[in-house]
């Protein structure tokens, strides 16, 4: 027994067919062959095997320097991005913003920033400023400002209106109203988001070096280019350990403050 073939069902069928058609077109356009996929599995595994055992001896000091630079980029960009995103977030929250015009403009700016992938922003900053961590910091700061401001705005919009009205009734100024009835109830969420942003920035800063944005990514890209796969394995392992450690710390703090 099948459901009746009504308008909704026919619409779903048409869109499903379009999606299947897209898959078929992409299959041929990319010249994807399952046979090639399965035969290349051997090469993929053999390349992955060459990463083992990780060799720390040749790149020991560079590895530490690169990783510290990566962490430093993530920290500074998170800090600068947060500084930028707080006013942007306040302006982009419908219930806190100064007027509708400021709200609309800020939301548009945030949407455009978030529309551009961070690596592309990094490429542009590298072209402008030159190779090095400064370009990476600038790129991640812009990306963080766009993303975190949007998250702040969305969090502030969920604040209950009644405490704000109560504070307003005491004769408080707008700033006092925000400081006493908007920020305190949202602070655990905002701290969680902040930790999440730091997590994202740490991951992003590991690949910035690929486009010349400084950090361990530069070392990673170079080691692959000169076919030093065991060094690559060491770099990947280090990145994994550091990212995982930071995630564990973030999880612990998040759990404690909730």
């Amino acid at each position, binding site marked *: 027994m099948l459901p009746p073939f009504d308008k909704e069902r026919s619409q779903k069928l048409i869109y499903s067919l379009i999606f299947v058609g897209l898959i078929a077109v992409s299959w041929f356009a990319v010249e994807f062959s399952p046979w090639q996929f399965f035969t290349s599995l051997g090469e993929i595994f053999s390349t992955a095997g060459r990463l083992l055992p990780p060799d720390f001896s040749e790149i020991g000091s560079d590895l530490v320097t690169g990783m510290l630079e990566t962490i430093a980029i993530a*920290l500074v960009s998170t800090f600068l991005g947060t500084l930028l995103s707080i006013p942007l977030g306040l302006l982009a929250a*419908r219930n806190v913003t100064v007027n509708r015009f400021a709200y609309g403009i800020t939301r548009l700016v945030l949407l455009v920033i978030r529309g551009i*992938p961070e690596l592309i922003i990094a490429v542009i900053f590298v072209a402008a400023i030159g190779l090095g961590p400064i370009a990476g910091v600038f790129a991640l700061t812009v990306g963080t400002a766009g993303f975190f401001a949007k998250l702040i705005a969305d969090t502030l919009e969920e604040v209950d209106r009644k405490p704000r009205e109560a504070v307003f009734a005491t004769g408080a100024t707008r700033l006092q109203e925000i400081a006493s009835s908007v920020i305190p109830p949202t602070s655990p969420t905002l701290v969680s988001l902040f930790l999440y942003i730091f997590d994202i920035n740490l991951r992003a800063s590991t690949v910035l070096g690929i486009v010349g944005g400084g950090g361990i990514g530069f070392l990673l890209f170079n080691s692959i280019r000169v076919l030093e796969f065991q060094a690559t394995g060491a770099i990947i392992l280090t990145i994994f350990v550091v990212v995982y450690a930071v995630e564990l710390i973030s999880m612990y703090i998040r759990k404690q403050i909730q």
Partner: protein
Amino acid sequence: MSTLSPRSRPSQIKSDSNRRLLPPLTRQKVILRASLFVFIVATVWAWTYIGIDITVFVTGFGDIARLLEYMLPPRFDDFNQALDLTFQTLWMAVLGTFLSRIALRSTGFRRSTEHLTAPGHPGSSSRHHRVHPSGAGFGLRADLRAGLGYRCPRGGARAWIPLDRNDRKAPRRLHRVNRSDAAGGGDFYGWASRPSGDVSLVPQIIPAFIGIVLYRLDINLRSATVLGLVGAGGVGLLLKARLGMLEYGEALGVVVIIIVFITVMEFLSAAVRGLLLGNDNISGVAKAPRFSLGNQVYSLFTRKGSRNAQMASSTESR
């Protein structure tokens, strides 16, 4: 807070009223303040480590302004090539999404404890690998047991299929389905557990599945645009080439094409999501939980179908 008796002295009343009432210092606050202190110290260290100062900012902004002078206005000399590579990006994203969804279906079911709950079963092992990396030891033991023929011989190998992070949503969808419908309906006809799951579970998770696929396609499109920067094809390749040849006007043209492309795809995605899902979603999670330019453009055309449009309208009504 001290209590004042009617016979309290005026000086005592005055000193108590001057005292600020502060909330107690809880463990939560101590951890929060300690974390903040550590972050500030770490940021100061990072600042000095990278060597950022005011001159860096001034010269940096000057360099960016100079680059923008070179870039503006954007040029579209090799528009056709950019268009070809943009479509290549699209095909890469569609195919990547499709292939990952094939893998998702099996592991999603396998990881759902509602569907398969036996300890040591590949369902539980896969779940531990993906959701709780710390449970890898338990999962590995479970995999070994599964690999040795415990309940499902091939399960262990299947549990290792690498997937994107979003596939962890699949078992959650499965947890929410109506179990009595699924099991009762299937068992009533005397089906084995697998066909019963396919016939009664799958239709219930279809809306959520469509939502996730579209959401994942959005993410893959963004990722595919930058894959070219490391030589993996797509429009990023052209951007890298133009910047490498110092053709900044054309590079900005490529960036404009990328932004337009991402916006158009988000618009189409929001439209398809609205038409296919409408309000028929499972617990409000079937739609893309993102506030995007494409979604906003779509919500200008229609006020239904987009979760953001719904959120906006609910905010307005409040």
